[in-house]
């Protein structure tokens, strides 16, 4: 692992709210989708921060908000000492060289009519780094070699590659600009299992060689557990738990994290037969109209009367760096509160006035 010196990225109370417009003549705002609602976290240099949560929890929006691909509504995003929300136009564009993104589906994020060379050079040109032809060419070859593709790939087009290779091109495109931070939104979920492992190993190797900092957004807890140093769990726009990967998986403290972990199937029948599942009742409530108080109280088997409904728990440090947003985390851990039955509440995909879809708010790229 690379040496770690202080945070590279700090988010302070970041909010991303999307207005819901309605009306024929005037675009009246009739409500908001509270996609990200007050998230604070910091990512150290050379570290991998994993963000997990189910669809609609705001994890992708947070990643995009960090790069200002969607404009945050409020909060501070400090990248290497500067608040990038205060940057404008050209200075923001230049700052983007240092933060790059890897998308989920390489087929739809790579232009089918551009050759690999043109895809890779585009970023260099945009940042005025492609003046010297020979140097550019060398840079492209180095980058391709780093992601395990032959130099002959330069003349080819995305459709000529397999899914795993396409994702390597996506990674190369991010790497070619020599960034400090890479935000990877579901980098392996479109890939087959045997290919997933190749790409995850590659990302780890690149981090060790180049000292990259990663923000990895994924719904697959096993993947995040494998690759991340610190893991943050999101539920309905808020961070509910954050801890080092080992601590979180050894002792999840938030009821939602507990349920999430117990729901992940393990490819081992002996483990599966003995496991106790915490089955959550019902579905994720709509982020246009999040429950008052603790957002998880409608599905929480440990919810206690009044306080969970009245007061939104803040993320607080419980045990040396293990942060939890639950009023009763200690009581649950000590077994002083027992889980109870929860009746499923019906959740409508079109709650409020938002366009009703599968519950996924932001079409994932």
């Amino acid at each position, binding site marked *: 692992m690379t040496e770690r010196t202080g945070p590279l990225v700090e988010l302070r109370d970041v909010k991303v709210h999307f207005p819901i417009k309605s009306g024929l003549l005037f675009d009246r705002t009739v409500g908001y989708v509270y996609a990200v609602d007050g998230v604070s976290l910091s990512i150290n240099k050379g570290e991998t921060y994993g963000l997990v949560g*189910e*669809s609609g929890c705001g994890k992708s929006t947070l990643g995009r908000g960090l790069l200002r691909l969607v404009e945050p509504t409020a909060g501070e995003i400090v990248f290497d000492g500067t608040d990038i929300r205060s940057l404008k136009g050209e200075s923001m564009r230049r700052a983007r060289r240092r933060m790059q993104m890897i998308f989920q589906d390489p087929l739809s994020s790579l232009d089918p009519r551009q050759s690999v060379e043109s895809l890779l050079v585009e970023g260099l040109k945009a940042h005025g780094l492609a003046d010297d032809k020979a140097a550019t060419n060398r840079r492209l070859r180095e980058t391709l070699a780093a992601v395990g593709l032959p130099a002959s790939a330069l003349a080819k087009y995305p459709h000529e590659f*397999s*899914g*795993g*290779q396409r994702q390597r091109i996506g990674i190369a495109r991010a790497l070619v600009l020599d960034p400090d931070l890479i935000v990877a939104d579901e980098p392996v979920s479109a890939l*087959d*299992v*045997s*290919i*997933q*492992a*190749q790409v*995850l*190993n590659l990302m*780890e190797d690149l981090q060790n060689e180049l000292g990259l900092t990663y923000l990895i957004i994924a*719904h697959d*807890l*096993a*993947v995040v*557990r*494998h*690759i991340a140093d610190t893991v943050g769990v999101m539920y309905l726009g808020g961070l509910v738990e954050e801890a080092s*990967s*080992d601590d979180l*998986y050894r002792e999840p403290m938030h009821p939602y994290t507990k*349920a*999430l*972990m*117990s*729901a*992940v*199937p*393990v*490819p*081992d*029948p*002996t*483990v*599966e*037969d003995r*496991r106790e*599942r915490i*089955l*959550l009742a*019902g*579905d*994720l409530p709509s982020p246009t109209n999040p429950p008052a108080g603790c957002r998880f109280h409608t599905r929480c088997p440990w919810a206690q009367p009044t306080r969970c409904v009245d007061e939104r728990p803040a993320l607080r440090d419980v045990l040396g760096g293990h942060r939890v947003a639950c009023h009763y985390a200690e009581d649950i851990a000590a077994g002083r509160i027992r889980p109870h039955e929860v*009746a*499923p*509440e*019906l*959740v*409508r*995909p*079109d709650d409020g006035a938002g366009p*009703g879809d*599968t*519950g996924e708010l932001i079409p994932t790229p």
Partner: protein
Amino acid sequence: MSLLDVRDLSVVFQRRGERPFTAVDKVSFSVEPGQTVGLVGESGCGKSVTSLAIMGLLPKRGNRVSGEVLFEGADLLKLRPDDMRDRRGRDIGMIFQDPLSSLNPVVPIGLQVAEVLERHRGMNRKAALKEARELLDAVGIPDPMRRLKEYPHQISGGMRQRALIAIALACKPRLLIADEPTTALDVTIQAQILTLLKQLVDETGTALIMITHDLGVVAGLCDTVNVLYGGKVVERAARHELFGRPRHPYTHGLLSSVPRLDSPRGERLHAIPGSVADNIPWVEGCAFAPRCGNVVDACLEGTPPLEPTATGGDLRCNNPVSEEVAVP
């Protein structure tokens, strides 16, 4: 007699001017009453095409299906389309991956469940709707009376999948085929649906064919597991046997390349090199040979046969992983 006996099932896709593509290549397996059988493999291994061929749902043109699909002794591939339609939904139910695209968006949920009952059990609309309400209740849809009149877009993804299960189980089929039933769902919802499926299968004694790419889902659910690669079964074993002592290098590779929630951190994943070939596999030797670490000369000369193992399974490999080698 087995409930379902698939013998040498092949599906060859043929487009004019192109080389024929063998998607499913002499696949044989059987399902006993009440048993849960898994078909596992990565994209392109032929698992979904196998299920569509069993159900007779492949398009009429552009493909050639051969072999036998014996359901209680009768060959489904030889049935007339009308007779097959009688069986689908009544004897064999099917659940698809994406409930939004397999439900009719302009027909209320209740009617879609009732339709099956009217068609196969000759019920009138009123009785069918009453039964539909009970079915929705049985699959855990809250307030089923109101749900009957609602459209698929008005309920969440997990509820839609429950509605689809209600439709598939409406006629109490003896066999249920579930093709990636939880892939489109979040993990907590996936856990709900898998628990529901397991419970329904236990209660009704329905046999289940579970098609999935997720080894975790198989580990908790299936009695017997068939691993497919390039359209062929490469390994078949009982659940504990397969996960405890995988013999085929592909199965072994798959199991060691998945990151596990309960494994220690910081170890490198054992990736399988290369990727599935696009060309027609199995013609010149084992299709997995180019990616295999155990490859021997015999692997490049003709298809290795599927042979019974000492532990009651079947294996298609010249140089299997030794039984002592554990999954890392």
